[in-house]
């Protein structure tokens, strides 16, 4: 328990000034969105596909006012409620896709790095090809296929997001495994008669998953953008299934010409805030957990700052 707590406190204790502030802001903002996602039914005044309340229909493209804080859109939905419900969709999709990435990418990387051979070669080739491919196009193609097969839903979108991020997890885990399996402790374990499965689970796993949280948070930001992009193109989640910010922006665009700003502004701001928050957290973690970056970043903080102040004096 103490180890977990000190590991959690590490990003704070090892940063200072601006970097710490950025990390704190990122964590607080992310927490707000997670709160909204969990408690959406209680926070949002209306449902995400609700067009009337207490027997009265909502106005079409109604201006923001006391009853509809952010106005209503062209489908009579309450923009404020949809912005909040959108947090739930976004967090659901991101969590699901990262989970799939970890469940698929980590074992694949571990096995491929540990055994090597032709399986490793083929996997590296395929993953590199996937990685070289424009990721957004890949997401488009996958969601095109998956919506043909399973229909447009949270699951289809999450899976197509997983497809574009799996290579990153695979590569990191595989490369760490390749170098870690030569370590003395692995050799010792093997000498004591540990089977391959035990070596991978007990000895290698803990050492190769350390960078996964960082990739996870950095990917989360990107995943939100990709999800919104797919929704915007109409390839993601349909608006009656769940509230999705990107899809809302697509509908808002049709009214941009007539000066309706509220239907697009709020879902857009929600995306910007959540992505910024996740980027700040990801970079904060990266700077403290990634030793190469940490050392490199610390140096420039100390030396030139001192030199400059001396110059001023």
């Amino acid at each position, binding site marked *: 328990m103490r180890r977990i707590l000190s590991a959690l406190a590490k990003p704070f204790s090892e940063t200072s000034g601006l970097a710490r502030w950025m990390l704190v802001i990122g964590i607080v903002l992310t927490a707000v969105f997670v709160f909204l996602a969990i408690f959406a039914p209680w926070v949002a005044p209306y449902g995400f596909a609700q067009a009337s309340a207490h027997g009265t229909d909502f106005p079409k493209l109604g201006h923001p006012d006391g009853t509809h804080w952010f106005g209503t859109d062209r489908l009579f939905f309450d923009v404020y409620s949809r912005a909040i419900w959108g947090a739930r969709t976004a967090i659901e999709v991101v969590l699901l896709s990262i989970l799939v990435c970890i469940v698929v990418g980590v074992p694949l990387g571990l096995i491929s790095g540990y055994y090597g051979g032709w399986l490793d070669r083929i996997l590296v080739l395929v993953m590199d090809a996937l990685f070289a491919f424009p990721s*957004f196009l890949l997401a488009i193609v996958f969601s095109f296929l998956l919506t043909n097969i399973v229909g447009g839903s949270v699951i289809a979108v999450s899976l197509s997001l997983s497809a574009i991020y799996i290579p990153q997890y695979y590569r990191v885990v595989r490369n760490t495994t390749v170098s870690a399996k030569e370590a003395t402790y692995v050799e010792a374990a093997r000498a004591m008669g540990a089977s391959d499965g035990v070596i991978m689970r007990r000895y290698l796993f803990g050492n190769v998953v350390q960078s996964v949280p960082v990739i996870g948070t950095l990917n989360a930001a990107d995943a939100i*953008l990709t999800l919104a992009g797919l929704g915007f193109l109409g390839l993601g989640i349909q608006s009656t299934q769940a509230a999705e910010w990107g899809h809302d922006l697509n509908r808002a665009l049709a009214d941009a010409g007539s000066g309706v700003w509220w239907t697009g502004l709020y879902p857009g701001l929600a995306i910007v805030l959540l992505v910024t928050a996740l980027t700040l957290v990801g970079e904060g973690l990266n700077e403290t957990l990634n030793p190469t970056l940490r050392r490199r970043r610390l140096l420039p903080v100390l030396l030139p700052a001192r030199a400059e102040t001396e110059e001023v004096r």
Partner: protein
Amino acid sequence: MAGTGSGSLPRYIAQRVLLVIPMIWVILTLVFVVLRVAPGDPISAAVGGKLDADALAQRREALGLNRPMIAQYWDYLSSVAHLDFGTTFSDNQPVLRVIRDNGGATLSLTLAAFAIALVVGIPLGLLAGRYRDSVADVVIRLFGILSYAAPIFFVGFLLQVYVAQPLGLPTGGASSPMTAFLVTPHTHILLIDVFLSGNGTAITDVLKHLLLPSLTLGLLICGVFIRLVRVNILQTMQADYVEAAEARGISRGKVTRRHALRNALVPVVTVIGLQFAMLLGGAVLTESTFNWPGLGQKLVDYINERDYGAVQGIVTIFAIAVVLVSVLVDVVNALIDPRVRY
């Protein structure tokens, strides 16, 4: 790699170029596996409602879709090798013609966006790196993060509401219908054709249409440049040769310009190549936001029509373009930076 100890440039380039073939093969195989082996029948997905069962079977036969997978795979590879990217199922057009008709618009959009990103991003990154931790640095970095975090269609939306409306700028298409009618297509790239025509009003019209879409896409890439140039300037400013230059009494501004900047810009070339893939994704969204008649918009149209043939052809061409650009960047990098050729 073995045998490159001499680090000769021609050898490195030859190696890099030869590697293109297996890379393209792997990507083509991937495209084929993902699009063809997946369950579902492409023909009934594309034109299912419009034709009866016999006609569907005929179309399937004509396109070779009832042949064994391996034969189809071979057909696909050999036709791509002959630069034949197939035909679309829904409107029965050669994919190459689709590329010709719409590729130009995408090209002008992305190049204009790149130009904007370079012109805005590099000076800002330089400024932020030079005056580290100043107010300007914080503001510029924040701008960098925001320009990444703001989705293209949201920036496009804001520009349409708050800029295009008050200024009366066009928000859709590459030109007004009149211009498109007047300009004769020589190159199929409207931006070039309109300059060839020499018609003043037509030129302004096309440029006006280009302004907001390229600004939107440019801002996205600009954030990447800012971050990159800033970090590189910070790193090079610590190099020994910069310190040596300062010790010789050269002013800080001159050191930045003459010594640090050049080396800080080398990685920018690499990143331009890496960003090309991101740019393609961004182009799809920008085109969709501004109704821009480019390849990305076309791809989305075909996807909505469930046209496997078109999707496969366009995706194949995008994939080949990405591989070629990455090789080109590596070669350029080797030419300007001797350290690359290990």
